[in-house]
């Protein structure tokens, strides 16, 4: 190759279409932000006032009302833990079948895949609070409504992770089972399930971690747990108790994250 041809060849990282797409994304981002900044309704006095108000609230939270822990916060915390555990199990029970139905290789019917995918997206789009409103109307206030709300919301996440795990499964063992005349159910139990077992554990643990956080807010709409104690304390303007409950949530979330990380390291 002569030096002339080397000069003429120019290395371009992206095709013009790729560059155009990237550019379009940045333009859309900039326009969206500009529009939001221009049209948002914020009362300026509230904004200037904010630091002062936050400091004031912080002062009222001190000293933390530790005596409140055993009579009120602890039972609520235990209820939250039960609620999130039940929600995780229920979510897995409902999400895994839908996940298998959404996986293209385990269920080779495109219309079934489509329906299952719609269920996954729809359950995920409706937030836990809205599910909770619905279940509180059905079963009355209490942890049952909370557990169901989190369970239904987590179908989407669990099912999505699962269908992805199933679609990545190795074809070899499935084909061996098919050659031996295994039914579809046997293929799922003996072929796919052992392959997605690691996915199962990681999804179960990850979702449990998320569910504990989620269950902390459901008390706002009467669905039980530590959120109810939080809501009561806020409504009664007992900031020292609010501080205690927030601190408790913080500690519990850190503990659970540590536990989940340790289990993941050892088991998976």
């Amino acid at each position: 190759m002569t030096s002339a041809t080397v000069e003429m060849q120019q290395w371009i990282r992206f095709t013009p279409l790729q560059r155009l797409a990237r550019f379009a994304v940045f333009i859309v981002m900039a326009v969206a932000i500009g529009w939001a900044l221009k049209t948002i309704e914020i009362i300026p006095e509230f904004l200037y006032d904010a630091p002062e108000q936050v400091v004031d609230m912080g002062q009222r939270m001190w000293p933390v009302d530790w005596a409140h822990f055993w009579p009120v916060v602890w039972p609520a915390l235990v209820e939250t833990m039960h609620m999130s555990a039940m929600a995780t199990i229920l979510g897995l029970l409902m999400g895994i079948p839908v996940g298998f139905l959404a996986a293209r290789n385990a269920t080779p019917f495109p219309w079934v895949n489509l329906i299952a995918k719609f269920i996954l997206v729809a359950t995920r789009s409706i937030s836990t609070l809205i599910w909770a409103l619905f279940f509180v109307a059905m079963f009355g206030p209490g942890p049952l409504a909370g557990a169901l709300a989190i369970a239904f919301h987590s179908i989407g996440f669990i099912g999505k992770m699962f269908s992805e795990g199933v679609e990545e499964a190795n074809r070899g063992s499935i084909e061996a089972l098919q050659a031996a005349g295994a039914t579809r159910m046997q293929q799922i139990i003996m072929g796919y399930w052992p392959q997605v077992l690691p996915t199962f554990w990681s999804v179960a643990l990850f979702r449990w971690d998320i569910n504990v956080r989620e269950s902390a807010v459901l008390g706002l709409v009467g669905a039980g747990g530590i959120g109810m104690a939080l809501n009561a304390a806020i409504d009664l303007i007992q900031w020292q108790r609010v501080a205690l409950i927030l601190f408790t949530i913080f500690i519990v979330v850190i503990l659970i994250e540590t536990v989940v990380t340790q289990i993941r390291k050892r088991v998976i």
Partner: protein
Amino acid sequence: MSVASLGDKSVVTRADFFAPSLGKRLAYVAVFAYLVYAAATLGLSLDRIEKGVGYGVRFLAGFFPPNFTETDIIPGLLESLQIAFLSSLIGTALAIPIAVLAARNLMPPWVSWLARLLIIFCRSFHPVIVAIIAVKAVGFGALAGIIALTFASIGFVGKLLSEAIEEISKKQIEAVRATGASFMNVIAYGVVPQVMNRFIGFIAYETDSNLRNSTMVGVVGAGGIGGTLFSAFQRFDYNFVAGIILCIIGLVMIGEVLQIYVKRVFR
């Protein structure tokens, strides 16, 4: 059963390789017993389910036909969008320096621990809880929603970005350092090129998640469509509730599709 004992036997069975472990079984039994106990505390009874399903059917029947005609939906959705965009912007802008400080391969341990503590703090509270506090601090409206979701964004982007920075190749950083680059130069030429694509993926994901949450924070008065939804719920205007929920699902689906598209562009 150990491998050594296999030598004595003439037949090797499945049980030799998949020996049941007592500890594992005990753990399973314990988990199962706990679940039964937890289920018992929920107060589930057949009568309650029967009644509940009856209420649920009546409730769902009240949803039809969904009402989209009320004029509150569009402004509410737009405000949710504004909250989502601005909180993603501010949250990401704040998360970048925090993530750099939290990366253990760039910073001394005490700095990274402090930054990680801040990230954990932001992550551990659900956006709605932060929104309650923010509403008390700065009053009702979109500002409280932006503050709440900014918190969540710092936690989310901070965690993912600091992990992404920790996974980068050390060689390029050493090469840049060897030229006598300053710290900012190392960041700009050693770190940024390696994490940029993933970072944009995080932003897309984060904006999507903020969009979901921005439809929710209104329930506690922090602006957006959630407030409209909650007040419709409280006056038993279920047709309107159904209309709002369908709009939220539509918006979230659009957000999800856009997020996938943005990720594909920047792969």
